[in-house]
């Protein structure tokens, strides 16, 4: 039986998803649902979205065949260059879509959470573009490790509010954004991944699906066939993966690999490998796989990559991983760092730490000669220079 990748009326993908929200958020969420259902079919909305993706973001992003990786693995390895988008990651695809929606809903203030700061920057950017007020919540720990992005958000005119509760990372920034939304129900909450209550997972996947639509067209040009053997993407909440997989879900011969951050090792106690360590539970308004203790308290995850340092995954991924349609694969901090250096040195591309996790999977696969593999290079590494340099200094001889 085919795994459905569209949610039912209440927002469930199989048993995962839904909208587990306090009554306080019911009306804002209902309004959002209604607006999304209407405008996603609206020709003038679609036209404006596509126009901005082309002229402002710079889409389509190239599908680049990596000479180095193709040689090394004796296969055809393509990088989907989301790092070349305006602001440096896939996050902008979703923020363009949602800001157009917010505008049409008459909203004036935009709230967002951010981990690596890429979603925060992408949100601050579209707010500057449209003249809307922007408030970004970011964990204190992430503010420290992704400081260049904090400065970018401020330069773009956004207010950055540190989240000081819990682990002071993405989970807590999301809590603070939702609390702020409860207190200011007229503002628009622009979520950055395929997480949160229905309709967010569906909506974010919809706006990100442009990635796999382009891959199909570009692969046809390059190889004469629209389907690769494998598509690989990293998963924090899972928006770049949802976008890269979306058009391939029904092509069951295509293997979909979701790469999770294993931190210092899956069972080290410092990990964010949700699909292995997680169990069914409710986080941020959605029933999904999440890391929790036996009392149902949410466990603070760990990853060197701020964008993957999240204890849950989107319900679409929970559903497709549990049903077997998507394969999950854990990658440690060190493996990701090595892959980042390899691509930088041999291909002249410095990837984001998040995307480096996806690259690192290649070594773990048994690859057939001439196989066609697409890796979603979700972002560029400028924001991670501090972490890279620390690693570089520490491991100078071995590099």
């Amino acid at each position, binding site marked *: 039986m085919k795994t459905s990748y569209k949610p039912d009326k209440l927002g469930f993908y199989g048993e995962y998803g839904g909208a587990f929200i306090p009554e306080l958020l019911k009306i804002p969420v209902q309004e959002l649902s209604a607006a999304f259902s209407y405008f996603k079919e609206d020709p003038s909305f679609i036209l404006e979205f596509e126009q901005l993706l082309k002229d402002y973001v710079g889409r389509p992003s190239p599908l680049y065949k990596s000479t180095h990786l193709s040689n090394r693995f004796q296969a055809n390895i393509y990088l989907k260059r989301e790092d070349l988008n305006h602001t440096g990651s896939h996050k902008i695809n979703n923020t363009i879509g949602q800001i157009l929606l917010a505008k049409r809903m008459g909203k004036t203030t935009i709230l967002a959470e951010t981990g690596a700061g890429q979603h925060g920057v992408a949100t601050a950017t579209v707010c500057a573009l449209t003249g809307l007020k922007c408030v970004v919540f970011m964990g204190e720990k992430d503010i420290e490790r992704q400081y260049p992005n904090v400065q970018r958000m401020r330069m773009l005119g956004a207010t950055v509010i540190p989240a000081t509760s819990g682990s002071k990372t993405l989970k807590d920034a999301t809590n603070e954004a939702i609390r702020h939304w409860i207190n200011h129900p007229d503002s628009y909450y622009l979520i950055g991944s395929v997480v949160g209550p229905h309709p967010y997972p569906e909506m974010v996947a919809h706006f990100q699906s442009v990635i796999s639509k382009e891959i199909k067209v570009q692969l046809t040009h390059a190889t004469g066939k629209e389907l690769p053997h494998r598509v690989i993407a990293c998963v924090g909440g899972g928006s770049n993966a949802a976008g890269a997989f979306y058009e391939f879900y029904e092509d069951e011969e295509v293997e979909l690999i979701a790469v999770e951050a294993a931190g210092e090792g899956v069972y080290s106690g410092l990990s964010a490998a949700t699909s292995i360590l997680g169990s069914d*539970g409710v986080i941020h308004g959605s029933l999904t796989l999440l890391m*929790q203790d*036996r009392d149902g308290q949410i466990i603070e995850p760990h990853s060197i990559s701020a964008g993957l340092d999240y204890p849950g995954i989107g319900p679409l991924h929970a559903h497709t991983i549990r049903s077997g349609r998507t394969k999950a694969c854990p990658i440690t901090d060190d493996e990701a760092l090595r892959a980042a250096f390899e691509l930088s040195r041999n291909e002249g591309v410095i990837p984001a730490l998040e995307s480096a996790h996806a690259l690192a999977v290649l070594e773990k696969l048994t690859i057939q000669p001439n196989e066609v593999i697409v890796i979603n290079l979700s972002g560029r590494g400028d924001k991670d220079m501090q972490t890279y340099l620390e690693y570089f200094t520490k491991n100078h001889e071995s590099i």
Partner: protein
Amino acid sequence: MNPFKKQDKQLSIFITAGYPELNSLPEQLNLLQRNGVDFIEIGIPFSDPLADGPVIQQSSQQAIRNGMNLEVLFEQLKETKSNIHVPLVLMGYFNPILQFGIQRFLKEASVCGIKGVIIPDLPFEIYMRSYQEEFQKYDVTFIPLITPKSEDSFIKMVSENSRNGFVYLVSQHATTGSDIQFISNQSRYADIRVLCGETPLFLGFGIRNNRDLASAYLECDGGIVGTAFLQAITEGTENEFLKTLREVTLQEG
């Protein structure tokens, strides 16, 4: 008989189980009962309470660090059961209950004589679809939350369903402990009181002192005080604080 139905206006207090000490609860229940509190809400601590402000967040973190969980809570409740006669309500986010097991939770709750359960992040629609049958089987009442902006039809439906319990009216769109403008909402509270019919209606979120409580007594059947009482616990002034709140009750009663 609905245990939340009285002639007089009622005062309810919310406390976080396991705060400030793991074993604080039994004594707190006794104190509240001695001071004539009409019913008590016991908060099950959760690591990520979305609808709560900093005070309840911090009390929950502390309670979790102290080792509070549902097993410990039900044990403490069984021990105090014979002394405590005011109705008890459990309030907690869905995830800890889900992990404990819904059946097991309801069974324990009913053994402990719990009169109602509030789960702020379990919407009524999902409750009806997936859990109502089990709640009924164990004779535990699901207490719905509404806000001044809830639709009239929704308010009617949930109050019908909660005839053995009450309806929890969240004073305004805000997290717990916020500054609330009670006055500007009074006429909506009055409409809601009518919509609820026979089901008692209590106002909560942001009631900090006797003046706020008097505002709750204007249109609703009572008020629920949480954040302000936890602050009094932290400061060691719970006796004095309860006394000032009781004065309002006596005046209005």
